Structures are given as C-alpha cells and as structure tokens.
C-alpha cells in the first residue's frame, strides 16, 4: 500500500532556521530516511521552496487565471512530501512517527495513494 506523507509546517518558522539548524534537521531526517529506504519502505521524497515562489492556476474560469502565491493562505503550508510503500496504515504511522521524532513542529498528513506513475524519464 502506498501512502503519501504530506509535510505541513509554518514556513515562517522553517525558513527562519539558520543554515546550521537546517542542515542539522536534514541530517537527522537523512538517518531515518536511510533506515526506511533499507527496509524498502521509502519511495520518492521532495522538499518545496517557499510558497512565495508559488504560482496558482485557477481553473474555475476559462481561460484559467494565473495568481501569484499559493493556492490557499493557511497557517501551516505544504513544505514537501514522502511516498511510503508499506503494508498498512500502522506501518505508515510508525514511519511518520520516526520522522516526526527528529523534526518536531507542524503535522504530517498520511494519505493513501490512488495512482502512482514513476518518473517517465527514468526509463
């Protein structure tokens, strides 16, 4: 079963981290990610740039409207995600708890994946 772990946190806080603080969090997460990868549970993962660099295409009108900024103004923003390949929700939650232990603050939304296309360029 594939789950997406959507990482939400206050980007003001996360992007206020110094280079050293950021690197320390990434290093701690790296250890957990390597463990999950060894167990065959970790798929692709990615980190997003701040929502200030986002552009939104509103499709509710024709032609769609281009808006600067994220889709929704929220207190916590989508900062990145992991794809997990695990047996069930409990395993997905366990993996998310391990990630949370080294990167507190914010929330993980654990969401089952309906359709998954691997990177077509990977060949």
């Amino acid at each position: 079963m594939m789950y997406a772990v959507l990482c939400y946190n206050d980007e003001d806080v996360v992007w206020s981290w110094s280079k050293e603080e950021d690197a320390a969090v990434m290093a701690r997460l790296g250890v957990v990610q390597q463990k999950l990868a060894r167990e065959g549970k970790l798929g692709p993962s990615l980190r997003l740039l701040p929502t200030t660099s986002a552009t939104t295409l509103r499709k509710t009108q024709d032609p769609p409207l281009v808006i600067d900024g994220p889709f929704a103004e929220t207190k916590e923003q989508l900062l990145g995600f992991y794809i997990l390949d695990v047996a069930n929700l409990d395993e997905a939650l366990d993996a998310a708890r391990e990630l949370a232990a080294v990167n507190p603050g914010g929330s993980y939304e654990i969401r089952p994946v309906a359709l998954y296309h691997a990177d077509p360029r990977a060949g």
Partner: protein
Amino acid sequence: MTDLTWINGALTAARPQAIGALLRYFRDLDTAEEAYQEACLRALQNWPRNGPPRDPAAWLILVGRNAALDGARRRARQDPLPEEETLSDLEDVETPLAERLDGSHYRDDVLRLLFICCHPELPATQQIALALRIVSGLTVAQIARAFLVSDAAMEQRITRAKSRIARADVPFETPGAVERAERLAAVAAMIYLVFNEGYSARTSLCDEAIRLARLLLRLFPAEPEVMGLTALMLLQHARAAARFDAAGEIVLLDDQDRSLWDGKLIAEGLALIDKAMRHRAPGVYQVQAAIAALHARAARPEETDWAQIDALYEALERLQPSPVVTLNRAVAVSKVQGAEEALAMIEPLAERLAGYFHFFGVKGGLLLQLGRGEEARVAFDRAIALANTPAEAAHIRMHLDRLGVG
C-alpha cells in the same frame, strides 16, 4: 511536543506581526516592544506546559496587550487584570482575533512596522539598525557585531533612532493605494540596505534581509518589484561561499568555483524572477535580478550571455540613470565589444566617480587588457587608496603584483 527550538522559531516568526499589531494598539514603539517581550516571557513559561497555541502571533498579541494594560493599571494603582492562566478559555478570544489578523490589518501592521524604520530623517545606518532591532529582533550585541562597533555605540545609535521616530508622525490610519506603494518602495530600499551591509561585511545580515523580503512578499504576493528584490538578493547571496578564498580575499565572478554556489537559493531566485517577468512591469530590482539570473544560469563563465547582460544594463540605465550603472555596463561591453569600447564608455564618468573604488578597479583592468601597464598601475594605486575593506585592497594588490612592480 514543544521543544525550545520550535518555540524560539515561532517567537521570531511571529515577532513582526505581533509588534506591528501592538504598535497599532499602543501607538508607541517602546510600549509595543515591552508588551511583546512580556508576552514572550509568558510564552516560554506557558507553552511547554500547555502546548503551543494554534496561532502563536494572536496569542502573543493578546497576552502582550493584556500585560501592558495590566502594567499601566498597576501603575495607576488600580486592580490588575487576571493572569493569562486564569483566563477561562484563551482559544475563544483567540479565534476572532486571529480572524481579524488574517485580514488587511495584518498586512498594514507589518508594513507600518517596517516603514517607520525607513523614516527619511534617519540616516541609512540607523534605518538598518532599527529594522534589525525592532522587526528582526536581533540583540543590540548582535547588531553591533555586524556593524563592527561597540555595544554601547550601537545602543546609542538605536536609542537615537527611536527618539527620532517618537518625535516624528507615524501614520496609523490605513494607507491608501498610493501611500502603500510609496511605503513599499521605501521598505524595499531599506531591506536592500540591510542586505548590502551584510554583503560587504560578510555577515548573517544577508540571511536576515532575505527573511524580511520573503515576509514582504508574503504580504504583497503580486508585486513584481518585491519579487525582483527577493530574487536579486537570493541570487547574489547564492554565491556567498564562492566569493572569498581561504585567505579571505575576493574571488571575482569569472574565477569562482561555481560548484560552491547554493543551488536552492538559485532555484528560488530564478523562480521568482520568472514570476515577476510575467507582469511586464519592469523595475530596477527586477532588471538587476535578471542580470544576476544570467550569471547564475551560466555553468561556466564563458557561457555567460554578455550581450543580454549589456541589454539589461542599458534598460537599467534608462530606469535609474547612474554612473555606477554605466560602469557596470562597461564590463559587459568589454566582453561583447572589447576593452577599447568599454574604456571609451567609462572615461566620461571619471569626474563623477573620482572617489569610487570600483571605477579605478575596472579602469585598471581594462587598461591592463589593452597592454597599457603604466596607466593601469596608476589606476590600481588609486583604487587601493579608495578601498573600503582590506579584501578589496588585497584584490587590487594582486593585479599590481601581476604587473611586476619593482
């Protein structure tokens, strides 16, 4: 789960919004700052016990406001307000407050806070110091270190700036569109001053300026010049690790190890300049960012699109005529057309740039390319005399060494 790092991060992130709102309530900077400080102290006691609030900024504003009113009443020998622990349900009060803050107030509160730091009566150094103290929340000691002055001198500078602000008319009414645009331009210029202070002194002020720019961009997500300013600083700061060698000497763009450039900052900068260009409303920050983007896009120096850079400097000359811009354009011209043309371009600037280090650095470099060693030496000597930092002087001395002095 509330660890101290998270709390500190949340307090720093909430600071501009909280102090901005408290300033609107109390209309006095010192009172607003004290109220915020008091709220932070209570947060440090309260949050680890009770968990972080849903909206840290709203919590800090409410608690800070109550604490300041409490203090004022105590001074007036009246009954104090209850402590925040005894308030039955902070959440109830927090919700409508948070909703109000999501509206236009929030934007104008933070903009006002930034704007009072750019009061035209304040010299640039005081503007920067004030913004770093009030908006960023850096300590006096941290700011003093960034400016290479004593704590006492910086304390005095900030106190002086604050008393000027207190005497000045701070506009508390909601700004109209024209005023808002004017404030935005003043704030953008102040943020760029912070960045440049960090850029020449190699301090963390560059990171702080970028943080302020992202803050401004979140408030005004569709302003192309705010995108341009943020992109410009990101793209310039991306080169920080490559700009100086192990001995602390300047490494020119052509000689930099491009693998040391920060890919994450470059990606964000390029994304922002792309977004800005869509608006087709060019401005000085966007054009400068576009120039920085062309450098960032070149994997090797010889891949740099100098013709396009020349065209962008020409556009910049039109938007903001200045001998310094022409001097920069001359560097691009020297790459496209040759040193002769570039030299002809900067010679008319000699009088206006007679005290400008870079003028003589560029002039010496062009003369050197043309094989006019003796004249180059004179220009380089002049540059050393005008150098602002030891690194600048050392860089020019290296050229002189190559000329084989003595």
